[in-house]
């Protein structure tokens, strides 16, 4: 968004000029990383000569994320909206036809098949910064990947999902402590839910339903859908709005971004509850990085991959996404406490390819069955 993509020749000329200036020492030395290797410096020069990196990503990342990358690397970056349907469609079609107009994609858990078919670049061999490859910097001792080969699709962000949003002026928070409390007759018809039938089946409504199908079983899901849900909507913000106004005092499938936006503007009747019996599941949100095999700027893509997974990149990303990073040195950020996984508890990782390929299909059948009734 900050750089025009269509002036390709102009960009390359700008990149070449920047590289020359860098070589001549006309651009001040960058403060990041602490002790750059010759290999890294050469890579940055090559990326600059390419004219910069184009990233298809979440629109919420905004100017701060761009500024952080530019300040750290000096490489121009173009951020293009890629989280919505049209962005995903472009990501798939351009990647599978080998004509990517972008160098990296940051989105949801959607690229397994592209990785399996060799249409993505292996990211693991591209990671050359020690702070990225050092397992000590990551929770559980290693950077998480969602593909079994741990090569193509890193998942640097992970937060607890399937929390329950309530209006505490209407509902006593102490009355909703475990999942079965949602089946109380007092809540019949008073729970709103994100629409699980959103095309692609990738929304929070579908994810929460799959989680409940796995954790609580089909009978629980049938009761929830049969008597407790008042309304579903595909609009995340509307869910929070309904709870804040008391239209529906309880909601499932809400986004922390919307909740915190309302809280920041003075809405103080929202309470987020993590159920005590089954603690929800881990979601990577829109943090999964992929690099198409046909990425036009290979060096720039590599610089971005290393930066994105570094402490600096994760700090900028976690702040913009308002979600906790798996990096141990990215702490105390601007995300709500209820998103942090609790130590010692076991969570289902719905982004894991094994789960998606072995467990999810059966759960989808259960969900379809429930929805058809």
């Amino acid at each position, binding site marked *: 968004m900050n750089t025009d993509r269509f002036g390709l020749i102009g960009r390359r000329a700008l990149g070449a000029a920047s590289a020359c200036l860098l070589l001549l020492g006309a651009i001040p030395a960058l403060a990041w990383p602490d002790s750059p290797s010759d290999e890294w410096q050469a890579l940055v020069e090559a990326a600059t000569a390419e004219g910069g990196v184009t990233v298809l990503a979440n629109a919420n990342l905004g100017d701060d994320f761009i500024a952080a990358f530019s300040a750290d690397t000096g490489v121009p970056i173009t951020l*293009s909206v890629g989280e919505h349907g049209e962005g995903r*469609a472009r990501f*798939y079609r351009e990647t599978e036809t080998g004509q990517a107009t972008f160098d990296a994609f940051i989105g949801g858990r959607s690229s397994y098949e592209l990785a399996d078919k060799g249409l993505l670049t292996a990211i693991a061999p591209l990671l050359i910064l020690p702070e990225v490859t050092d397992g000590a910097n990551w929770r559980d001792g290693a950077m998480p990947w969602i593909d079994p080969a741990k090569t193509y699709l890193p998942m640097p962000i992970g937060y607890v999902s399937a929390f329950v949003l309530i209006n505490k002026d209407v509902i006593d928070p102490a009355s909703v402590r475990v999942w079965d409390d949602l089946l109380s007759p007092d809540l019949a018809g008073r729970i709103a839910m994100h629409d699980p039938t959103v095309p692609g089946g990738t929304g929070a409504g579908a994810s929460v339903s799959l989680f409940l199908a796995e954790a609580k079983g089909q009978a629980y899901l049938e009761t929830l859908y049969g008597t407790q849900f008042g309304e579903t909507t595909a609009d995340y913000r509307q869910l929070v709005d309904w709870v804040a106004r008391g239209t529906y005092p309880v909601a499932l499938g809400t986004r922390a971004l919307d909740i915190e*936006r309302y809280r920041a503007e003075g809405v103080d009747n929202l309470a987020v509850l993590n159920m005590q019996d089954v603690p929800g599941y881990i979601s990577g949100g829109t943090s999964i990085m992929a690099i198409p095999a046909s990425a036009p700027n290979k060096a720039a893509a590599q610089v971005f991959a290393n930066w994105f997974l570094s402490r600096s990149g994760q700090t900028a990303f976690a702040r913009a996404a308002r979600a906790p990073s798996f990096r141990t040195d990215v702490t105390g950020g601007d995300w709500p406490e209820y998103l942090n996984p609790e130590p010692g508890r076991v969570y289902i990782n719905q982004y894991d390819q094994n789960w998606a390929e072995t467990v999810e299909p059966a759960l989808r059948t259960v969900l379809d069955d429930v929805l058809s009734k």
Partner: protein
Amino acid sequence: MQTTESAGFPASRVSRAVRGILGWRSAFLVLLAVPALGPVGVILAQSFDTSGLGEPFRFGVGAWRAVLGAPETLSTFTTSLLLTVRVPAGLAIGFAIAWAVVRLRVPGHQVFEYLCWFAYFLPTVPMVSGWVLLMDRDFGLLNAAVAGLGLPAPFDIRSPGGIVWVHLSLQTVPLLTILMIPALRLLDRTPEDAALVAGARPARVLGRVVLPLVAPAILLAGLASWIKALEAFEVEQLLGERVASFVVSTRIYGMVSSEPPRMAEAMALSMIFLLLLLGLGLLYSRALRWRGQGAANRGEGSGGARPSYGTLLRRSVSVAVGLYLAITILLPFGMLVMGSFMKLFGFFALDQVWTTSNWSRVLGSASFGASLRATLTLGLATALPGALLFGLIAAGMARLRGPQAAAASVLVWLPWAFPGIILGVAILEVSLTFPGMRMLHGTIAPLILGLLIRDLPIGVHVMRNALAETDSTMADAARISGAGWLRTFLRISLPLQMPALTLVFLILFAGAIRDVGTILLVAPPGFQTLSLQTFNYISNSQFEMATVLGTIVALLALAVSVLAHLLGRRLGSVRSAVGTRA
């Protein structure tokens, strides 16, 4: 000329046929057929592609089976058809306003006509926010006002009824009014005056004299509007969230944006939809020619002056029309501006409801400047060559006769039936799969191509009307003096058509800066117009930012509509063609 018989065919006929095949007219038709039929061919081919990710084309009918076997297919088509109920309603209201403006010439008629032009150029997506603020079930101000009287809230903007209302108020009625105003202006006043003098009441004159005379124009407008109503996308996508994939266009979008995309199914569904729309498009094309002949037989152009209606009637109707337009156009526009100053869109239960921070955040962001540049770049890059190209096509069509003229007319009108989202998908596929187009992928060229194809019918139609009404003496003199066709066009016809060209330029410019559906899938990375950014903000539930950008785009539209209105008044009957955009 000597003729010899050969296998039963006169040589002259064969010669004429060969010349016809090889002549410029055939080349011209082929050039017209590429943009008109190309997208249909691409969509048809893709609908039979059953290959997996990254695999070469594999023929199959799996996608067609899936689409035809899905119960949603019938329900989405039914819903799409049901939502077109706004067309007859829009025809009735639009005709009443046009009658008031032209025949009654009510006080304020010029302002009313201008308001319709303003609404025509307004960006739909942000204006939806204005209606949300008024008619949302939970926080709409109109609902709150009714609830204050102790009555249940009557409105729900996020419902089929709400969607119909938004279309009706912002698009259908203004555009149908613009379309019918010229038809009413061309009516001879004699029969109307005679009826009034004979003692008929105004309602009887309207029903027995005016309506029958303009019935062909009304039917034509209704057909054009019906086609556009069937293919609507943005409003349905934004307000139909509670009922995902509930019309055909939003279901196609849902398939395209699935993970992974269900392209073949989307193309099969698009093809079924296109067949329906193309049928209507052909009907429209034929009706257009029929109406043209009918108009000539009626000897139009001899009237236009105001019949003698009473002052009380004129003033009463003026108040009614003024109220209607204020409520349906100015009120949501005011709400749009108001929403841009709210801390939390639609949330009035805060200690501090108002803020200017939305404006400072948008205007201070790095992306705003880039989006503004992208918007102006796309508008100019589309409108400048588009106006000239459409002028050339219109001039070329004027030289066609017989079946060639009919074929050209049909080809030019075919894109009228392309829904923006389908056209966008087709352009994306063309730029990804056709060797000659691949070099353009990732540039703004596919966007311009898509917008030009979309606006081909209206642009060429405006220019054809303008050419038809131009005295051909000077052009004939130039040709007799030895100037070629192109030289005559550039040196004589083009300067004479400058007002019409400027009007087409403005139509294309306004269309480009407010478009979402056509360019959504083909905009290159980093290239985001203000309308696209607004759509993204709304899709991301950032209504506060969306209303700021929407207000800016609306102000741009206001400037364009002032210019277009002034030009439109100078062009007279050319406006009738513009109205067909409904």
